[in-house]
């Protein structure tokens, strides 16, 4: 898993490339926490995500909660077909990452 973070106009962007799986979540945590600690909204680019498992999705859910607790939100701006399929398999609505209000 490769995580690239960037920031423009107070909005953080995170691009995740490669496999989003259990083997990489522990390693990814500090990188994500660092971005989230800055607060504000985060754009997630998942267009280059390859394999994706339940733990990988849970990692993003955890990041979403973190962002929320700081008053920000995480929006997925691009996603690969394999990520979408993985969401479906695990039984999570794709809307969950589209818009914070969308879950209600």
């Amino acid at each position: 898993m490769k995580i690239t973070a960037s920031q423009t106009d107070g909005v953080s962007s995170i691009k995740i490339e490669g496999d989003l799986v259990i083997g990489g979540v522990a390693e990814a945590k500090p990188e994500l926490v660092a971005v989230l600690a800055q607060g504000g909204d985060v754009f997630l680019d998942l267009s280059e995500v390859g394999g994706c498992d339940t733990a990988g999705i849970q990692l993003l859910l955890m990041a979403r909660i973190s962002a929320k607790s700081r008053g920000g939100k995480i929006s997925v701006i691009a996603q690969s077909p394999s990520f979408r399929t993985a969401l479906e398999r695990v039984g999570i609505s794709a809307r969950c990452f589209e818009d914070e209000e969308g879950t209600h």
Partner: protein
Amino acid sequence: MDGNDKHLETFRQEADELLGEIETVILLIEENPEDDDAINRLFRSVHTLKGSGGMFGLTDIANFSHGLESVLDKVRSKKLAISRELIDLTLAYRDQVGLMLHAGESGVAPDAARVEEIVTRLRALSPSSETMSDAPSPIPSAPAALSLPHGSVVTYRVRFNSHPSLFVTGTEPALLLDELRSLGECAVVAHFDDVPALEDTDPETCHLNWDIVLTTASGLDAIRDVFVFVEDICKIDIEDISSDAILDPDAPQPRLGDILVHRGDVAPADLHDQLNRQSRLGELLVESGRISSTKVISALSEQQTVARQQLATKNDSVRVPSDKLDALINLLGELVTNQARLSQIARNTGDMVLAVPVEEADRLTDELRDIVLNIRMMPIGTTFSRFKRLVRDLSGELDKQIELVTEGAETELDKTVIDRLADPLVHLIRNSIDHGVEHPDERIAAGKPAKGTIKLTAVHKGASVVISIIDDGKGLDKVAILKKAKEKGLVPPDVNLSDKEILALIFLPGFSTATKVTDVSGRGVGMDVVKREIDSLRGSIDIQSETGTGTRIDLALPLTLAIIEGLLVHVGEDRYVIPLSAIEECLELTADRFATTSARNMIQVRGTPVPLVRLRDIFGLTDPRPPLEQAVVVDVGQLRVGLVVDQVIGNHQTVIKSLGKLYRKADCISGATIMGDGNVALILDLAGIIRNAKSDEASAIIRNTEARRSALV
């Protein structure tokens, strides 16, 4: 063995439906290859056919289906594009499986060489050969989509509460969920409200829980087996919810609140409290923080599954042998007749105490009649979809480009009418393809688009349904028709006919204008058969054609064959019923009606001469005529005729009773009905009356008098 045969029969019926679905869907895909939904439907149908074929030991069907399924799986995953070849092969597959299914009854064996050829060509479509041996999905032990009578289909609610160490033990929950999905129809909702913020937790621990609603025939043990490696650390609750009241097909659709209470997600008191505030329950519960939004989403998905299943249960229970329905209709006829009698008696006695309940019974009988007749109603769309295939195959054969557009597929008609309509419609559409729509180059030369259109529509019009076949072809050649009719001696050589009359000539027996006989049509039999069949359904045909722009054929058919609206008339001692759909108007035959014409048997109706047919003559009644007779003007086919009767009585809901074998030759009568007072009235067959009036009168009169007497005795 007996039971097994019964199951096999059920399988055949369902397989036939699946084949119908396959045909419909592949033609949809042909029109729009990007239709993912249709591709998935096609895949599922083939998959189900494979699975259930295997279950019944029909390995030829299972293996054959497997080959197609492998290719379709590639299409589904976008590794292969839809091609003309694939569509042709799918249709060929559908035909061969149809033969395999019915080889025992029809005696037509499937063509083994053809099957082999299709399999080889399918294999050639698939880019790599290994995929053919590699099953895209396992043959399910009991496909959930196919409701077989023995394996009972049960809906379970599975609550899968995970343990934080789940991931660490090497379990991937998504795989478990996939396994559940392979058992049957499955709705999965994950709960992630307990997921902590990233900085507070180890992301390798699992904080997700799942609610699954699964409809399967595989049984509880199969579900438990899925969780066998995790049940020590996770909490798995499996509950059969199909036996609950909420799945009772008679019960109304379960309410969200009931489900939430049932699942223990919310206390009944909380629910009651919220309901008093009258708003959308799910939103309110979430707002008030009583439960989480995912819990509501999960319950909502359960609500949908249950509702769908109720619908399925209802749909499953409609298979009734049609003779039972016929018996019901017959009985209903008796009831309607008897009710009419009762009402008449109540009116005659003028007793108010009697009148009120009789009126109520009247209303109930009417309602019952509508409902029972409605049971036999089927959407005509089932026949329409057959024609898509016909048009596709024939236009390919004749090198024409034709699109079939259908409208009003949901229009309902009596099942008997639909069944008997299929052949005439096939014939008319074949004619349009063969004689109507031109070859593309011819069309372009005439300034039309290369692709011809045949439109097939059905609409309700009063008590009948009008089915129209409209093509944008070259139209009927009226000059050629008239010339041919004169050559054949069907029309005297020096007569002048209107356009309408010329077009009606094509319905004469032995008439065909096609200069060369093709496979498709033009054998000179057909249009007269079509006409006869439509007549026997008490329908009518109207044909309009404009040279160069196309032909339109309208078939007007009664909604049902069991009950018609009729006009009751009096002649002598007897009463007759004239089908209301044919009646244009009623007139009094005053002396001045005849004044403008010199003939005794002709009157002027708004400037048009109308010939009169005296029912008194037709039925050989000799008693004296009343001083003032009445005429009922009817429109039969292309002819307007005035039927002379003693008196018009009024509208009559006529329950048709067919006459016995003895009276089958009674040409002027199509049936009989029993009146409210217990007397019999004969229903007039208008086409027969006109035939009779034209032909040898004396013999017809004798024949029909006899029939009438015997029918009434």
